[in-house]
């Protein structure tokens, strides 16, 4: 079977980007949206066709899903070490293709309505095209280096889109912050790639991930500071993934990234780009699992669990709707991370991996839906702040219902999608690591609580003073909401374990009733608490907050992470390291160069009188020189 046509999936958005980017001013803003949507629609159809071909026409061979690779050598170093460009088709890349296509398409449709009347519309859709291209390239990458290239490309598109409103200083600052923080983490990724290349002699995923391959079997042959060098490489690669997926301590860019237009938050900072880190760990899962008995994988699990809890706590106290959703995203990403971290490899043991990918899929749908619904609300009331919203259910019925569906899905209430995936994650955690399981359960409760806190705050309660009566958004915006809501309802019934497992063989997953009951109970408790606190205006929440005192204050200020980083950056790095270096550069290096220049100028000032401008003087000097030379040659040689 030939999958080479899948190269078109990334290339179509690239073409859209080039078209809209080059003819920026010549294309009307109204037309550019449709160009973007049709490009993405073509990619989406191709993705679905590929998925159909892969899972249903070819299916399993010898009980295992095959991996298809089409590639050409791009840079040649040695016989084994070369950088290829190509496409790799296996279950998780197909799954990511579907996620990226559906969400991108929906966001593009939504943006037609949301960005209406904005002058830079064409630029916006061009950047969306660039992002889709990079993301497709990332999921289809055949080797570490290719994934790194596209990894940086999604970083750039994210930077461009966060800073879309470039006249707003906060947006520019957020864009820079996102870029610098993720770049900083990517340094770890790059070093990890180089270590892998050095010790295993290959970048190729297939060779690296082969459980019987030399890369995995020979991990013990190298060691550095008590751990295998390969383990170090995997930890460094995970740092890159943590940067993109906003794990602690690299999460600080994600809340600020909400300065971008809301569709961008939905696409990049909720559904697709931020899961790149999870995808990366999943892509290298056999290495993480087998090398050093899963040492690096344990780190993944704990970082994920801590981030998940941490973000959920912060989300409770935030007052900006998009920031609540951003912290919620971070929390759910932590969920996916620790699900990977507690996963096994063979058969039923691979439930964590399967659950992580399942949650990635369902989360992409309902979180994109939440963001788009939030965008619809912001569009109607012209404010990001929860205090400016209230009683909106009368004005915006569709947004209300879809938001409710998404909130129920993320809170893990059956039969919505989030319940099924979250339940699998909790089962996996329960079987492998009790501590992480308890963290997961607490986070599930917190998630339900903060989700319904904003739900009740926005759609119930009293009306606020609105400049003009909020009204439902146009069809271009409500259609994606309804479509994603539909997926959020039925998405959980997809038998994911049939398709996606670490060993690619598939297994039958069953609902674990006691654990499911606990999860539902916790979710309902969270909702009930939120109902008590926020359904009616009362001072219960305030009293509660005061009860926590200092802890509440810390949470409100996001545990002072930003301040800490600023302190380190400004007081220590800038003042103690950068300032002396800058002094050296300015005074010594620049000083030398400027000194040479100044001396030259001074000397020239003194001797410029020799250039009299009289031809005869020059002729005299010339003849005199010839005479002197003649004398020298005749008499002294």
């Amino acid at each position, binding site marked *: 079977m030939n999958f080479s046509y899948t190269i078109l999936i990334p290339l179509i958005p690239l073409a859209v980007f080039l078209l809209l980017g080059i003819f920026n001013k010549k294309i009307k803003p109204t037309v550019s949206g449709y160009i973007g949507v049709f490009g993405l629609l073509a990619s989406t159809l191709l993705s679905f066709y590929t998925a159909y071909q892969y899972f249903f026409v070819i299916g399993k061979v010898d009980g295992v899903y095959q991996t298809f690779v089409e590639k050409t050598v791009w840079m040649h170093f040695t016989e084994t070490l070369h950088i290829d460009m190509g496409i790799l088709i296996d279950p998780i890349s197909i799954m990511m293709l579907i996620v990226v296509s559906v969400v991108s398409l929906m966001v593009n449709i939504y943006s037609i309505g949301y960005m209406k009347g904005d002058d830079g519309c064409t630029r916006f859709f061009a950047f969306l095209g660039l992002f889709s291209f990079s993301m497709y390239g990332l999921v289809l990458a055949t080797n570490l280096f290719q994934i790194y290239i596209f990894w940086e490309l999604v970083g750039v598109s994210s930077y461009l889109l966060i800073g879309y409103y470039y006249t707003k200083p906060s947006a520019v600052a957020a864009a820079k912050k996102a870029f610098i923080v993720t770049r900083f983490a990517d340094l770890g990724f790059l070093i990890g790639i180089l270590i892998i290349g050095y010790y295993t002699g290959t970048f190729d995923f297939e060779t690296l991930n082969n459980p019987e391959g030399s890369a995995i079997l020979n991990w013990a042959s190298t060691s550095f500071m008590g751990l295998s060098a390969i383990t170090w490489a995997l930890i460094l690669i995970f740092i890159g993934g943590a940067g993109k997926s906003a794990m602690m301590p690299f999460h600080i860019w994600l809340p600020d990234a909400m300065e971008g237009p809301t569709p961008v938050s939905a696409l990049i900072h909720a559904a697709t780009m931020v899961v790149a880190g999870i995808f990366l760990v999943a892509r290298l899962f056999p290495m993480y699992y087998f090398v050093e008995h899963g040492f690096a994988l344990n780190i993944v699990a704990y970082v994920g669990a801590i981030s998940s809890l941490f973000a959920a706590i912060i989300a409770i106290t935030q007052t900006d709707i998009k920031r609540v959703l951003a912290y919620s995203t971070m929390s759910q990403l932590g969920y996916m991370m620790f699900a990977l971290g507690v996963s096994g490899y063979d058969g039923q043991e691979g439930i964590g991996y399967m659950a992580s990918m399942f949650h990635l899929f369902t989360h992409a749908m309902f979180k994109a839906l939440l963001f788009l619904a939030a965008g619809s609300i912001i569009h109607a009331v012209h404010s990001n702040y929860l205090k400016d919203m209230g009683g909106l259910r009368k004005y915006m019925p569709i947004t209300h219902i879809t938001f409710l569906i998404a909130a129920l899905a993320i809170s893990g209430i059956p039969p919505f999608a989030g319940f099924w995936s979250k339940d699998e994650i909790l089962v996996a955690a329960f079987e492998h690591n009790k501590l992480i399981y308890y963290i997961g359960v607490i986070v599930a409760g917190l998630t339900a609580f903060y989700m319904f806190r904003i739900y009740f705050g926005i759609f119930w309660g009293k009306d606020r003073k609105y400049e003009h009566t909020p009204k439902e958004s146009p069809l271009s915006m409500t259609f994606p909401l309804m479509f994603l809501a539909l997926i959020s309802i039925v998405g959980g019934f997809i038998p994911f374990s049939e398709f996606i497992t670490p060993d690619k063989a598939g297994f039958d997953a069953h609902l674990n009733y006691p654990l499911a009951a606990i999860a539902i109970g916790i979710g309902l408790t969270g909702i009930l608490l939120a109902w008590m606190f926020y359904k009616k205006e009362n001072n219960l929440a305030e009293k509660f907050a005061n009860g926590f005192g200092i802890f509440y204050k810390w949470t409100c200020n996001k545990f002072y992470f930003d301040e800490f980083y600023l302190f380190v950056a400004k007081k220590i790095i800038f003042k103690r390291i950068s300032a002396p270096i800058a002094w050296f550069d300015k005074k010594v290096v620049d000083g030398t160069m400027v000194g040479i220049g100044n001396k030259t100028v001074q000397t020239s000032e003194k001797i*410029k*009188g020799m*250039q*009299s*401008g*009289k*031809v*005869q003087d020059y*002729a*005299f000097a010339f*003849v005199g020189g010839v005479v002197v030379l003649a004398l020298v040659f005749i008499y002294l040689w």
Partner: protein
Amino acid sequence: MIEGISIYEILTLTSILFFIGIYGFITRKNLISILISVELILNASVVNFVVINKYLYPDILQGVFVSIFIIAIAAAETALAVSIIINLYRQISSVEVKDTEIMKY
């Protein structure tokens, strides 16, 4: 080949002619005089070509050709120089060399 006159005498003569040209070029104040001096230098070299050809290589004619060539080019060059001088005169109403020093530093 002229009877009774050796190549040394003629070369001495052309050398004197050449240095007269150089001297004139350096000392004259008037652009026309400088042009004439340049012609003297050129003529000295033309005579050199002919003489050396006749005395040392009587069988060939290259030197004579080159001298004719130089005369032709000198004529063109003079025309050019005179036209420059005329233009200069129109600009600054002078053909004195000391007035044409705007190219200095």
